[in-house]
């Protein structure tokens, strides 16, 4: 049954998954190509100097990619469930409902994780060739909040899509904007290092939102 449920989620999201993966890979490669070009023109020492003295990590291009990917996967996965209230079919399946919703979310999060890991690996593998491990760590720690912003966006979108009332959708959307803005307020590298635990807790807590939307759906709170 689990395989069937994962298959259903995959059928809905695979096109968006591959487009997102392609986008993430292209932007990851483009970022790497830009760094490589700078090294060819001015040498790797120049790159190090800029990174150390000017707080530049050369990865600004990817900043909003995880966010966009999170939004796209969330919509692709949950919008078909709410169109014509197909969620009724899903909730009628002979499978424990909380586990079912959990499995849906896990599938979406796993897809995001794959996309983010592939992109991060492209940058990391290249960076390890040209930078000391301290600077690679700095780059990765700078990107981490952006990837968590992607997970956050995904969890908000799923909750908003599964929500049955417009009033609550608007409230959730405003809350999502407020929370997501927090991830992008500080432009300096590693600005969020002290908050990473808080960010992880936020992401974990946000999984509850979709369960709440399902409970309200089952109570008949629908427009």
């Amino acid at each position, binding site marked *: *049954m689990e*395989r*069937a449920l994962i*298959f*259903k989620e995959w*059928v*809905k999201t695979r096109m968006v998954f591959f487009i997102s993966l392609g986008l993430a890979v292209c932007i990851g490669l483009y970022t790497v190509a830009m760094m490589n070009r700078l090294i060819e023109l001015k040498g790797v020492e120049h790159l190090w100097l800029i990174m150390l003295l000017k707080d530049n990590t050369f990865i600004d291009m990817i900043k909003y990619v995880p966010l966009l990917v999170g939004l796209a996967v969330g919509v692709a996965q949950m919008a*078909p469930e709410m169109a*014509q*209230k*197909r969620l*009724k*079919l899903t*909730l*009628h*399946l*002979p*499978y*424990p409902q909380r586990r079912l919703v959990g499995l849906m979310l896990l599938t979406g999060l796993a897809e995001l994780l794959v996309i983010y890991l592939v992109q991060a690996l492209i940058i990391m593998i290249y960076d390890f060739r040209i930078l000391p491990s301290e600077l690679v760590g700095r780059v990765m720690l700078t990107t981490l909040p952006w990837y968590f912003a992607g997970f956050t966006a995904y969890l908000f979108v799923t909750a908003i899509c599964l929500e049955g009332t417009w009033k609550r959708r608007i409230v959730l959307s405003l809350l999502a904007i407020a929370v997501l803005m927090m991830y992008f307020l500080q432009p300096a590298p590693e600005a969020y290092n002290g908050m990473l635990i808080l960010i992880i807790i936020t992401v974990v807590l946000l999984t509850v939102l979709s369960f709440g939307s399902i409970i309200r*759906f*089952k*109570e*008949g709170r629908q427009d």
Partner: protein
Amino acid sequence: MNHDSESVISVKNLTQRYGTGRIIYSDLSFEVPKGRILGLLGKNGTGKTTTINILMGYLRPQKGECRIFGEKITEMSPATRSRIALLIEGHVQYAFMTIEQIERFYSRFYPKWNRDAYYELMNKLHVSPGQKISSMSCGQRSQVALGLILAQNADLLVLDDFSLGLDPGYRRLFIDYLREFAKAEEKTVFMTSHIIQDLERLIDDCIILDYGKILTQMPVDELLRDFSRYTLQTDVPVEKFSADSLFVNPGKIKDELEFYTFKPIDEVRAALGSIGVDSGSLARQEMSLEDAFIGLTGKY
């Protein structure tokens, strides 16, 4: 007969409102016996889909208790859900899947899955297994939904307005397959439809809902035997008949009076005599289920 032990669906004192506003019905109680095909009939807005939503656990009732296979619907287990096949209004299915994918998907959930029943119906549609459901016509989608229900081989079928959007051919196909399946396998069916003439060929029992209450619950053949439509030529004003509960929904066009009643013709003649109306032209008309429905609920 002890209905509790025989009933597949049991609804007791169900009360529901639109939000905090108009009451849809109050203290609604009915039972669906095992092996029967029951049609829930009512005009738009009388709460047919609401009742199905409550029974399937998509709406919490404001008051009352519903049980399916003896289990409270608010705490329905996956095992009980596997015994219920559900058709959502508009034959909604996972339109993003293909004919083949959706069969494989559902087959993992139902132990009594009958693949042949599904593909027997699909073969009649002349569609390829790789065709997406979203690219099919409404009629074809209805057959996919029906095929999945038949393949599930559930003990209870809950069908919400199966005729919605279907042309007569597909409606007939749906009914023929469903009736043959339900009767051969002794399935219990609880269904609604806004096309009542379709149900006449299918259902054993009917519940006729009016705004806020059940008007009648009885076998269709008993309803058609005992409930009658009469016509009478008279110049007596219709208001005189409205005062007597024997004359259900009386109406008059020119001098022809029309009314419905559960009473036999002798009692009708006696009642007419008691209010001074000549019953010489009284005539009993043959009725369809739709006529009986109109007779009970009125035209407006």
